[in-house]
């Protein structure tokens, strides 16, 4: 694929998907991509999120990365922010769980209760994540 082909593909996709974009508005998925997250397979979770969102036809969810959230024992960890729902940290997120989060949390507006791990570790909350 050349850059030109990519440009065309983007233009085509934008026309196709405009109407569904309201679904993911202001939603954020933040994947913990520190050394611990990477070792536990955070890259696979990232891939699964991108693929699952694409399958649902949602293009405007922000998918970003952060460092270690201080929950290394339940990596890969993912923070999900959906307007009107509590900000949630999920732990042990493999590809399967990532798909569930997109389907239930982002689209269905229901928490995936088996994988909730509260908020980031106290020292990180205090320092505002810095």
């Amino acid at each position: 694929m050349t850059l030109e082909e990519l440009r065309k593909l983007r233009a085509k996709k934008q026309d196709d998907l405009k109407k569904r974009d309201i679904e993911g508005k202001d939603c954020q998925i933040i994947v913990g991509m520190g050394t611990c997250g990477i070792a536990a397979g955070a890259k696979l979770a990232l891939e699964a999120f991108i693929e699952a969102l694409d399958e649902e036809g949602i293009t405007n969810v922000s998918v970003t990365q952060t460092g270690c959230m201080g929950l290394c024992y339940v990596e890969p960890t993912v923070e999900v922010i959906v307007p009107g729902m509590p900000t949630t940290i999920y732990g042990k997120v493999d590809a399967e769980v990532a798909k569930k989060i997109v389907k239930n949390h982002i689209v269905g507006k229901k928490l995936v209760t088996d994988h909730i791990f509260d908020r980031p570790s106290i020292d990180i909350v205090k320092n505002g994540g810095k």
Partner: protein
Amino acid sequence: MHFFLCDFLLDISQNSLESGATEIKIIISETSNYISFKVVDNGKGMSDEVLKKVKDPFYTDGFKHKKRKVGLGIPFLFQTSKDCKLSSSVGKGTTIFFGFDLTDIDVMPLGNLSLTILAIFSGNCKSVCDVIVERSLTTEKGSRSYTVSRSELLEVLGDLRSSGSLSLAKQYLESKEEEINQVRVETMLDIPEKGEEL
């Protein structure tokens, strides 16, 4: 410990992303029996004194996580790669090289390189930073290469944050990797499946 060689690249590149660099160059050269990675950044660099300490897994400057003694992930690399060189100078930047003998049974599989590049491109960056990846694969049958950069993808896609852009970037990077893997197809019969990573 990391599961794939790609994970080392992602881990190490993140240090460069956080170093305040404005340009990071990643050179990945693979032959039938050897793969090497070189990450060059023009970030803040490290003094000789710090360079000695970064191989200690518990060494940290203490700025990122005040109460935690967790280092840069570099010691993992020195444990795994037999050819690993790190050089740096304050204010100029850091260069790290690491290579693996692919015939060594203890060397882990490469993993999903296109996804790794995507994760680096969309990673947390403290400065306005371009990342350029030069990837080549050379075997007895020939040589192929490609170059991709963060700035060109940003220019075409507008951003590397939204799931739609990331999905398109992923397709683009996968197609590039597939193109050069043709050399492998021509070289041997046991073709590694696309998406080796499970």
